[in-house]
């Protein structure tokens, strides 16, 4: 069973090639080449800075201090504009994989707990843990919630379905940054949710923004709220293709609602579930906007946020660092998707 696209099964390879060519070219140009360029960038670091001592004067007085010697530096830069070849140097340094530091921690720490504490204190692993936690909590909940909403909406009378569907996909229509900012103000100690929570818990010091755990929970709940409509829309569309005969037959056989969902609906829309899970995982691994929207940099950093931080938060742009983290994010997504992809591929092979 399952939905098979008639277009793909019937299309000869040659037609498919011409059909895909424009998309393929655009993908190479706008996705492939930038990734290659980022990859190359990640292997380079800046040239050694040649500095010299000079006198600096400003309205508050004069001091002797150092500046970058432009004459000497510009010569080196012109010869090798990419910078100094660094190999995997940036990948393994303390702000990324921190191989050396982890080795040191392993030797120096007394207990495994202490070792884990030290490792999770490193920026890359800190970000990785938040990213994975976010993915693992948001993805299944999005699937579940999306499916439940789709089932419920499919059951209500057709007359009110339109407005209900519109209301349900609203979180997806709202720009992520705006959505998170709205929630950010609502959970403020003086916002509607924050103040009511304080009353409810009878704790005037309760702040959703100051505690790390509560910040994580807030971001995860926001993520579920924002992504569920996507799952809902796809599931809802898939539900329309469920054949009515077996459902009716099941009803006559006395199957409960749950049994019908479990044995008829779910197997039918299973390929779509895989698809939504894939897209969701990919999206969630790149979580970024809510961190900015919630000003949560202090408590929650994701891999995407690290890239952003390297590119804009410093007065000096760390291209090498940002490129290395980007490449590792791509690898991370590939690893995360591998099980699902392998399974889909196997099913595809057996189906043929």
């Amino acid at each position, binding site marked *: 069973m399952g939905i098979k696209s008639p277009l793909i099964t019937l299309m000869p390879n040659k037609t498919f090639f011409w059909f895909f060519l424009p998309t393929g070219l655009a993908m190479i140009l706008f996705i492939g080449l930038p990734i290659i360029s980022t990859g190359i960038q990640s292997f380079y670091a800046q040239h050694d800075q040649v500095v010299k001592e000079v006198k600096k004067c400003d309205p508050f007085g004069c001091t002797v201090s*150092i500046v970058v010697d*432009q004459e000497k530096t510009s010569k080196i830069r012109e010869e090798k504009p990419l910078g100094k070849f660094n190999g995997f140097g940036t990948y393994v340094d303390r702000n990324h994989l921190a191989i050396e530091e982890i080795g040191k921690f392993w030797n120096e720490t007394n207990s495994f707990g202490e070792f884990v504490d030290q490792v999770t204190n490193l920026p890359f692993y800190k970000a990785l843990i938040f990213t994975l936690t976010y993915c693992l909590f948001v993805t299944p909940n999005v699937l579940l919630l999306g499916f439940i909403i789709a089932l419920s909406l499919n059951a209500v009378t057709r007359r009110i379905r339109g407005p209900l569907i519109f209301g349900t996909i609203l979180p997806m229509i709202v720009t992520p940054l705006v959505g998170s900012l709205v929630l950010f103000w609502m959970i403020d100690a003086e916002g509607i949710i924050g103040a009511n929570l304080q009353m409810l818990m009878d704790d005037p010091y309760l702040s959703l923004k100051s505690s790390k755990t509560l910040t994580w929970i807030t971001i995860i709940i926001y993520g579920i709220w924002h992504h569920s409509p996507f799952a809902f829309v796809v599931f809802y569309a898939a539900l329309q293709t469920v054949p009515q005969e077996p459902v009716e037959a099941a009803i006559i056989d006395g199957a409960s609602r749950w049994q019908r969902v479990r044995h008829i609906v779910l197997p039918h829309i299973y390929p779509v579930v895989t698809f939504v899970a894939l897209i969701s995982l990919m999206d969630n691994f790149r979580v970024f906007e809510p961190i900015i929207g919630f000003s949560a940099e202090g408590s929650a950093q994701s891999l995407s946020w690290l890239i952003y931080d390297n590119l804009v938060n410093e*007065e000096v742009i760390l291209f090498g660092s940002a490129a290395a983290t980007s490449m590792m994010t791509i690898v991370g997504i590939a690893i995360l998707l591998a099980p699902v992809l392998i399974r889909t591929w196997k099913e595809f092979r057996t189906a043929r």
Partner: protein
Amino acid sequence: MRETNMKKILISLLFLLFGTSVYADCNIKSGSINILANDFPALRTFVETAKGCKGSADFKVTHSSEHNKIAVPALTANPSEFSARIAANSSIVPLMNQDLIRPLDDLVKKYGKGIQDSQLITIDGKIMAVAFMANTQHLYYREDVLKELGIAIPKTYEEVVAASEKIRASGKMQYPYAAAYKAGWNLAEEFVNMYIGHGGEFFKAGTAQPSINNAKGVATLNMLKKLAGLSNPDYLTHDSEAIKVEWESGNVALMTLWASRSGTLLDDDGDAKITAATKLTGPATVAGGNIPAATLWWDGFTLAKNRSDADAEATFRALAHAAANKKMVADAADQAVWLIEGFKPGPKSIGVIEAVKMKAKPYPMLPQMGLMHGALGSEIVEFLQGKESAEQALKDVEAAYMSKAKEQGFL
């Protein structure tokens, strides 16, 4: 029509009387001017004044609080997007590091009439920027609250802590202190101020090796944590704008904030009672030191290197007109502490004037300082949250800085 003619005649008369000596030459015939600047009232006034002298040149301006993120990429392009960038002590450094701004000596000689020598930022004997205003972070206090509880105006951070505790104990305010502790740039800036107040040095003399993991660094962190404990628990999300709102809602009685924000705090918007009781004083010292736990900042203009000489000339003439403009300084006396001749400091300038008197240090203009600032902004957060020790936090800062500095070729 007649009125405008009269105005023109009057202005021409004024020019005849004072023009040559007071105003920079404004007869700009060609070129295109495009300015990148931060966004606060004084800078808007400054750029507006420059615009008044644009003549027939093309004039554009981008005011953005995200100016730091745009500056380097925009000025790296050739020709660069902007012909001028309004920079400060810290933001001129990346421009210098990448060789993106041009020396101004010729232009100052030719068109810089009225600009005072003290306004010139010279590096290695070359004029790289022309400063026009000064800024610092200093204390603001609520006169009514302090008076009612019989608290003297705090002069040190120890006194700020004691005063805040007393206010909290009185039940008047739960979180009496505020400062911009938002994780990232703001928090790092608070560390820099407090560390300098303790007499600390960021690097081993003459090198780019960090040296903050010491007793002064620990004392700095402990003081920041004490102050954070007296602030709204959401302090890690509060930037200057957020604490300004806290102040205007009457939740705070003592605050460390930029001098350039005093104008908006003391304007007619908001609760008149709070505005009337809002008073300014110099920056506090800490740990018995005599220099304030604050840094001095200048704002000034720089010209892009990757732009034609004609554009640079037009831009310089317009900006120099503003940077030596006695009328602007008189009209906008309460917007900033202008470094321009003829400025008469008003009550809103107390903070900066006091800071200069107390010999506050300028923010360190070192090529690698931005990397240190960035490392501080993210690595001391966990200490404030109580998740790690001060020593560990400082060790983390140094390690994070070292990796970045290696990548940038400073180590």
